[in-house]
């Protein structure tokens, strides 16, 4: 029945068998018809489509984390002059303080100085960064979300600050962790670093994996044989233990972790791309390209790679979620990002260590669960979009 779905133009006359001509599309970014169909299919999976938007919005917001949760104000007006502490560091003396050190705008003393000069400050919605200690925690840290506090619990702080009740305190919407860091701020920064880590790891390992798979599949023979055996040996190394060993020797940082995980994650796509190239190199249009004298590199890039990209694209969201999960797991075990950095895994670890503070575990769990679910839903929709046989009601 496939024949009927393509445009059937009568072929009875050799002169103008095309019938109506279709002018080239005038769009700036002209999607090829195949990609347009895929986009339609992707949209048809409502869950995945909305997940993509939610994810993009969340990721977009988290990219601007400094503007949402920060212990430095956007703008300070002081003595008729404007300061932008969010972009620049000012010393305390700028505002009439005593020390040469960087100004701490959360300091009531500094706030008073600014207010007395007739100036004002514009703050981000959350006045904590991921590493801002809340010095006024009403209970010993971890302290519960402010809206859960009883008047009795915050009586001391309220009194010290000369306020009337709990509701006048600076809010920690999801409480603080055991170092009196604001959980919301840490979630926003942690979300960002997890997603960025996942994307970077996926991008680099895909490039390596696709290249390796392409070479193996296209040339076959001994190249393929040797590469495959090497990969088999490599993948049989128990990677988690090796990761633990390496990360206890090297000082873990974002890029060290990226490098370590990259050692093992690049193999994920090799088999897939290799299979696509093995299949693809026998297509007649590859043979036709060789008959035209097209070089191997061009054939691999122009003709074979697009085929392999279908399978690769289908896998990408799942690899991203896998990378996020690995980073979270390492942080949870304490072998991940350096202490103090915002990370979802570290929050989960705190939740485990502080069962009496359920807001830690619950917020960590929901953030990780929502992030991974969104990625999986997007992955499912991408898979549908690339499925040539899939039809929707």
């Amino acid at each position, binding site marked *: *029945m496939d*024949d*009927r*779905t*393509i*445009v*059937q*133009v009568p*072929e*009875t006359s*050799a*002169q*103008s*068998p*095309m*019938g109506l*001509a*279709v*002018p*080239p*599309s005038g769009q700036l970014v002209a999607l*090829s*018809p*195949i990609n347009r169909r895929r986009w*339609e299919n992707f949209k*048809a999976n409502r869950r995945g489509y909305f997940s993509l938007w939610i994810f993009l919005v969340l990721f977009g917001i988290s990219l601007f984390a400094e503007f949402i949760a920060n212990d430095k104000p956007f703008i300070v007006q002081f003595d008729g002059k404007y300061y932008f502490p969010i972009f620049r560091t000012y010393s305390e003396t700028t505002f009439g303080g005593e020390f040469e050190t960087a100004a701490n705008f959360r300091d009531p003393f500094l706030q008073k100085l600014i207010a007395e000069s007739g100036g004002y400050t514009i703050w981000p919605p959350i006045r904590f960064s991921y590493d801002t200690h809340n010095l006024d925690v009403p209970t010993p840290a971890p302290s519960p979300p402010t809206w859960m506090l009883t008047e009795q619990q915050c009586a001391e702080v309220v009194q010290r600050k000369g306020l009337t009740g709990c509701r006048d305190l600076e809010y920690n919407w999801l409480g603080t962790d055991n170092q009196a860091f604001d959980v919301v701020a840490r979630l926003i920064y942690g979300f960002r670093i997890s997603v960025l880590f996942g994307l970077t790891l996926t991008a680099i390992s895909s490039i390596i994996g696709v290249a390796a798979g392409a070479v193996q599949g296209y040339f076959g023979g001994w190249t393929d044989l040797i590469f495959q055996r090497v990969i088999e040996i490599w993948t049989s190394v128990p990677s988690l233990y090796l990761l633990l060993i390496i990360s206890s020797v090297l000082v873990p940082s974002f890029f060290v972790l990226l490098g370590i995980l990259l050692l093992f994650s690049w193999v994920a796509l090799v088999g897939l791309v290799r299979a696509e190239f093995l299949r693809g190199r026998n*297509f*007649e*249009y590859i*043979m*036709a*390209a*060789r*008959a*035209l*004298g*097209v*070089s*191997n590199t061009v054939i691999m890039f*122009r*003709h074979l790679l*697009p*085929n392999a990209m279908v399978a690769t694209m289908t896998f990408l969201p799942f690899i991203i979620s896998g990378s996020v999960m690995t980073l979270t797991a390492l942080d949870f075990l304490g072998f991940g990002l350096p202490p103090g950095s915002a990370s979802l895994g570290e929050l989960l670890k705190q939740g485990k260590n502080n069962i009496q503070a359920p807001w830690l575990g619950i917020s960590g769990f929901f953030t990780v669960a929502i992030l991974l679910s969104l990625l999986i839903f997007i992955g499912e929709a991408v898979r549908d979009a690339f499925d040539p046989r899939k*039809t*929707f009601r």
Partner: protein
Amino acid sequence: MDATVNKLLEVKNLSVSFRQGSRETLAVDRISFDVAPGETVALVGESGSGKSATALSVMKLLPYPAASHPSGEIRFKGAELLSMSERDIRRVRGNDITIIFQEPMTSLNPLHTIEKQIGEILLLHRGLTGQAARARTVELLTQVGIPDPESRLRSYPHQLSGGQRQRVMIAMALANEPDLLIADEPTTALDVTVQAQILKLLKNVQSRLGMAMLFITHDLGIVRKLADKVCVMKEGKIVEQGPVERVFTAPTHPYTRALLAAEPKRDPAPLNPAAPVVIDTKDLKVWFPVKRGVLRTTVGHIKAVDGVNVAVRKGETLGIVGESGSGKTTLGLAILRLISSQGKIVFLGHTITGLNFEKMRPFRHAMQVVFQDPYGSLSPRMSVSDIIEEGLWVHHPKMSKEGREEKVVRALRDVGLDPEARFRYPHEFSGGQRQRIAMARAIVLEPTFVVLDEPTSALDMLIQSQMVDLLRDLQKRLHLTYLFISHDLRVVSALASRLIVMRHGKVVEEGPAAELFARPQNDYTRALFAAAFNLETAAEGVVAQ
């Protein structure tokens, strides 16, 4: 009641519609026909005309609910099939009505022995097991002409040839002595000589068992040979139906007339012994080593092409015919130096044997190729313009954008396509149009020599003859030299000035085409021609089964 007595199958006002996305496609549009007991009715039409959908709806084998029947009824022995429950229809399927499909490779389960596959049907519908089932299976295999059936019982499908597999399929279809056999292009995937045998077999068992047959084909030759009644389908409608004799001698519908006139005209390029030789091979061999054992030592060779001498003069068409596996495609690829071979190849006076890929490149623009599969030979991700331009990028890297565009437009005009087609993608075109695009890709480089590897085999009859006309026209205008590879002798006879008959990698017979067609010397050539032109079988032993 009386009306239905002499009608075994009655299809009334049947429509089939497929839903894809939000689109509804009507594949079959209110058709009516009937089949009497013992009668053979042929459904003819091009691909996409709805003939297979019709046949499958009789069996209720369409992919419901994506497929639906907006109207119509199908009565078999008076019982309505379309409204029948799945349980009841299963009793009809494989018992009263059976079906054979086109592709014998995939219609048999590769993991089951022949005995098991046939035995399953006997068990399901007749409850036969053990010795009784085995005896019946052997009887069936004998009936369909499988030699030495006892020893074949334990064979797996891959151990049988295509023709034998189709025979097993027929045996399975006959197992319960059905009243109606639906044959959906049962010989399309087979070689002509095997096709003739299978058709003879079908005719035999039909007359012996007195069953009716609904035969689906695009080949009018088969209809004429086999059917009593014919329904001509076009775009989901039956445009004409009647007794074969009447339809063939006095067709009323213009489409039927066009179909009958679609035989490609025989007007090959003239022989010109004075013209320079374009391609010349001496003792060309393509041997694939067979390796065995731990050390992968070469124990023998599969001789795909075994010592072939070919000489094509400028402006001529050399036809290469043979059955599948005879090495004709391999020969074409070896001449183009797309696979490694031994023996000398001289192209326009240059010895091109042993040149590597880089050194071959200067010759590539002069030797081009068009492949069989119009769906596989164009990259689905490139626009038509990109596809045709690719060769220009390689051979004229300094050509301006305008220069390339002009060449693409001219090539598209040459192959009879609207130049606006260059902005579109291959999937928007039908099979015939795609073959034209493939041809445009070849001629844009202004080649001297074009290898045509079954360029018409995947096309419908009407389009085949258009393609042949186009090829002939291009040859005259652009002074092309063709190497035309095909198993379809009718198309070859329309184009070839010289002919080579190949079998098992060797040349069986060669000579000027006119002479060869008129007076074939070799037994095999004679058998091949008889099967191709008259659907007649040869004496035992000359051709494979």
